[in-house]
């Protein structure tokens, strides 16, 4: 990794950390469980790294490692988003719930 790309990566990291702090400290305790599963799904973005590893064909070992990583990461992405949606659909205001 060149020094320029390290510096720009550090900028991204630092700014994302500040932004993350601002955004996440506004999430009410009510939604902490959905928050955890949502961030989990989002960090399943490591899938993009796994995809390249699984498809680049450097060696059999790295293909296998990449394949397992793709399975794990896509489980997180799909499972995480599905379950977050499912949870969020349950949070209702009073008027909607009167008769179910």
């Amino acid at each position: 990794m060149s020094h320029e790309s390290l510096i720009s990566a550090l900028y991204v990291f630092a700014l994302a950390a500040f932004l993350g702090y601002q955004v996440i400290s506004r999430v009410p305790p009510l939604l902490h469980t959905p928050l955890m599963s949502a961030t989990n799904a989002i960090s399943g973005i490591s899938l993009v790294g796994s995809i390249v590893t699984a498809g680049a064909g450097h060696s059999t070992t790295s293909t296998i490692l990449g394949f397992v990583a793709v399975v794990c990461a896509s489980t997180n992405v799909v499972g995480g988003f599905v379950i977050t949606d499912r949870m969020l659909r349950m949070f209702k205001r009073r008027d909607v719930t009167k008769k179910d």
Partner: protein
Amino acid sequence: MQTYFIELSYLLASILFILGLKGLSHPETAKRGMHLAEFGMLMAIIGTLMHHEIVTYTWILAGLAIGSVVGLAMGVWVPMTAMPQRTALSHAFGALAAALVGVAEYLKGAGHLDTVTMSALGFEVMLGSLTTTGSLLAFAKLQGMVRGTPMTYKGQNVFNMLLLATTVGIFIYLVINPGSMTLFFIMAGLAFVFGLLLVMPIGSADMPVVMSLLNSYAGLASAATGFVLSNKVLIIAGTLDGFSGFILSILMCRAMNRSITNVLFGAFGSATTAGESGEQQGSMREVGLEDIATQLAYANKVVFVPGYGLATAQAQHAVRELADVLEKRGVTVKYGIHPVAGRMPGHMNVLLAEANVPYSSLYELEQINPEFATTDVSVVIGANDVVNPDARDNPSSPIAGMPILEVDRSKSVVVLKRGQGKGFSGLENPLFFKPVTGMLYGDAKDTLTRLVQAVQHA
């Protein structure tokens, strides 16, 4: 051209992820936010599939197919009561993916990795490995496959510290000499072991903190992957996840008035800390179901205080039914939720939402505490430490200073409990001995269902 398209898809994904998390600041905007994030993820995946390094799609598509099916199955069928276990498992998956990509990158570049890349790679593999095993053990404890009580032995902390120091030592050596493959795998192996040792001494009651910490580690492992691959969207998403977990762990610790160090190394709730609160005077007063039903039926305001016992008894629907019956009679019903009630942050809120309790009835600690003085009946369901007045009144108590739900200030307290045993912390709870308190033993779901009938006839 192609590279631009990929990078633009990553940029779009990063923006949508942030908007998605911003949406979570309110239940009304949360769903739309998540759809944005989902769309962002889709774009990033499509973009990645055009990467020039990819020569074969067989394994990618197979992996995506298996992962999607497993993920979908888990997403659709996992019951809300099992949410902590599911989350622990997904931390393990996320961390494992990061660790494996790290190992593959190491094998690819073995020998000629520069210092910066090797440092990021080492972090990635170390954090990824320890989070994988740590989360799996947390999963096993939550699922009841392993005892939830802390497992301790003599010299545990010293041993763990030595192991961690060795792992970090190897890591530093590797940064200087990236070539020694054997040491690289020893480091990964030690990190796997350390993950287990880290979670072993932690009791079930401290799970909310551990879950948040593992969440944070899994995110940081992803962010480190981003540094290794010079991939900005990975850095952003990983950092957001890492910080989210970090903020949650701080909130959880604050809600217990303990430091992270104390949670991780204190082995809280093991047999050794029990019995410190000393002798307890008086006796518990058992009350009849009919009495409670009458009290509830003629009350003006009732506050329910749920704890982990609500989840184990699957009593969330029964509570809602009781609340419905009471509300029909004109009783004001509220729910007081302690931040660490349950096994993960927000656990109780999700369970009650599942039972169709409107979120406007769920109150946080600071909101509900001033209300207890005007509450006629507080109903404690399977909660113990979060309502223990010792935390407020007894400075020598192990949980002294922990903010509690002050149910003992209400006119009457009913405690629904499975048996006469102590809570997970092993502490005596003076609340149970107070004159205002009545104990109602039995399975919470069963008791609540019978209360519904009794109130209807009152």
